[in-house]
């Protein structure tokens, strides 16, 4: 199979010496959904902007369907579609006028533009609103129109930069269904997201990006497998108790080693503990908690999520920039890294 996207050692530094990309490489097989996963400021949007010919890389190469984005930008633009984080649709035009404009700028024949517009408005449930100015559209409707515009010329490769950020759950589910449909039609999709659930559901392969570097690559299943088979969530009554529990459990490290557990993480009042053998570990943990007189308010065994993957890879949660979680100082624990900055999105404007 050919590679729809090939990215080798991309580097980009913005004014003010913000290192947005620090040697990013990955390939995307044709006809698949590829996820670029990472927190705000990780460099995801910068990768997309380079691949869509909007921005030039300082170093490295990027190819779309074998064409170098820097050497053949005009050709690349005929092959791609882009739907962005901020629905870049024209406020003053109606939905139909927006699609017509994009169709014309793609140099499609008038009849094709018209019929394709009708078809996409129908597909994205915008027919009733087609001739209303965008001012009357909801956020979800704008996002759908943005995606429709990106699909107008039937691109071979579609770039979706955080397509569902800020959408309500229903709109998000709707968009996911559409994206899944596109791949069945042969489109290659590169999706950036900070929603781990989104990458898990849509992407067949993904890379995890943090501070301009790829820190992991594989299928969602592989990444989860790296973590251990089960996560034990212990909910405590209050943060104080939670901290004490974490100390009791990690203490000398002997208990955790004996049950094959990795370092516990404290998220609010929940202690997350990746373990190899869930039930066996649960028995040991409960026994220890009973000895020290701690009664948890919740005790759950679950499959690891990509959130856990991110945490174990970077030492901080995907949302760590908001300061919502903290890592425990455990023996042999990973050093905590700085949370993602928001510089990227500012530079992108």
């Amino acid at each position, binding site marked *: 199979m050919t590679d729809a996207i090939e990215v080798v050692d991309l580097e980009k530094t913005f004014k003010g010496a913000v290192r947005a990309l620090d040697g990013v490489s990955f390939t995307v097989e044709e006809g698949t959904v590829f996820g670029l996963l990472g927190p705000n400021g990780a460099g995801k949007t910068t990768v997309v902007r380079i691949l869509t010919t909007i921005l030039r890389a300082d170093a490295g190469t990027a190819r779309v369907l074998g064409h170098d984005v820097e050497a053949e930008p005009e050709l690349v633009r005929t092959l791609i579609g882009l739907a962005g984080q901020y629905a870049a649709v024209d406020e003053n035009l109606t939905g139909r006028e927006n699609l017509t404009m994009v169709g014309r700028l793609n*140099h499609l024949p008038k009849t094709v533009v018209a019929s394709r517009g009708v078809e996409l408005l129908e597909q994205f449930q915008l027919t009733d609103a087609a001739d209303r100015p965008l001012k009357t559209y909801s956020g979800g409707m704008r996002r759908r129109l943005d995606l429709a515009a990106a699909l107008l010329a039937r691109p071979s490769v579609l770039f979706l930069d955080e397509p569902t950020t800020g959408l309500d759950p229903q709109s998000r589910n709707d968009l996911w269904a559409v994206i899944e449909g596109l791949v069945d039609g042969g489109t290659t999709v590169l999706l950036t997201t900070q929603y781990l659930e989104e990458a898990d559901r849509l992407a067949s392969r993904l890379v995890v990006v943090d501070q301009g570097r790829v820190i992991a690559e594989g299928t969602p299943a592989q990444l989860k497998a790296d973590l251990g088979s089960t996560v034990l969530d212990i909910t405590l009554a209050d943060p104080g108790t939670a901290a004490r529990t974490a100390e009791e459990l990690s203490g000398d490290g002997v208990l955790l080693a004996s049950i094959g557990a990795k370092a516990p993480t404290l998220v609010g009042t929940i202690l997350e503990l990746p373990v190899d053998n869930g039930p066996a570990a649960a028995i040991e943990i409960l026994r220890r908690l009973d000895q020290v007189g701690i009664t948890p308010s919740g005790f759950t065994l679950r499959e690891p999520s990509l959130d856990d993957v991110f945490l174990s890879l970077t030492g901080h949660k995907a949302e760590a920039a908001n300061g919502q979680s903290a890592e425990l100082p455990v023996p042999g624990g990973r050093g905590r890294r700085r949370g993602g900055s928001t510089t990227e999105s500012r530079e992108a404007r």
Partner: protein
Amino acid sequence: MTTASLPTVSGAPLATGAVAKLRWALADAWTVTRRNLIAYTRIPEALFFSTIQPVMFVLLFRFVFGGSIGHFTAAEGIPYPDYLMAGIFVQTMAFGSVSTSVGLAEDLQKGIIERFRALPMARSAVLAGRTTADLIRNVLVALIITGVGFAVGFRITTGVPEFLGGVALTLLFAYALSWGFAVIGLSASNSETAQVMAFPLLFPLTFASSAFVPVNTMPGWLQGFANHQPVSIVINAARSLMAGPKAAHLAGSTTTSLVIQAVIWCLVLLAVLAPLAVWRYRSRT
């Protein structure tokens, strides 16, 4: 949302050859022009209030200041309404071209230009489409000003072709200025800034000029500037075309010489500002 009608991949066509590229560049510029014009029709109140201001200027100068300034122009054989018209035209057009900077700053802010950059459209279309739309908008404003001018006593004393030539000259001047405002719009952090940045530039140029009062009524040090800056030269040329050779005489020149000077100014401004705007567009985006 249904996923029933699945798109099969095909992509957009690619231009081959210089002729096809030029044809598409023109088509793209027109597509963006239309998009900008539609935007103007969607906010008619913005267009309405932006034309109210020049109309008020006509009334202000004709009826409030005109009584006293009129003595000076009448002494030179030019009724004040005839003197005023060319000034109002150039001032209105010049302020009208500020919409280029506001429009571009807004498109940058909203990410529309980013979207355009990923489309297989001509790079030139954004700037060409913006300035063309603002030129067309200025034509509409010119019609309104003409109507108001006639209502307050302006009369064509030369001929319709000369009058239209004068209007065309002011439109050309405004078109050249549009490219300058494109540079400002592409440099401003947002559309509000783009708007206010234009004011300190245009205000001295249009008021320290021959637009509303004969320059010889100004203090000597100001006369030097007011006589030779481009706004005055374009106004004097347009006034000579609209009000006849007396106006050229008042400016110490002939109609032909003034028109040539004005056209040269417009072309020089275009030759400097357009590449500057293109350069700014490329480096900003």
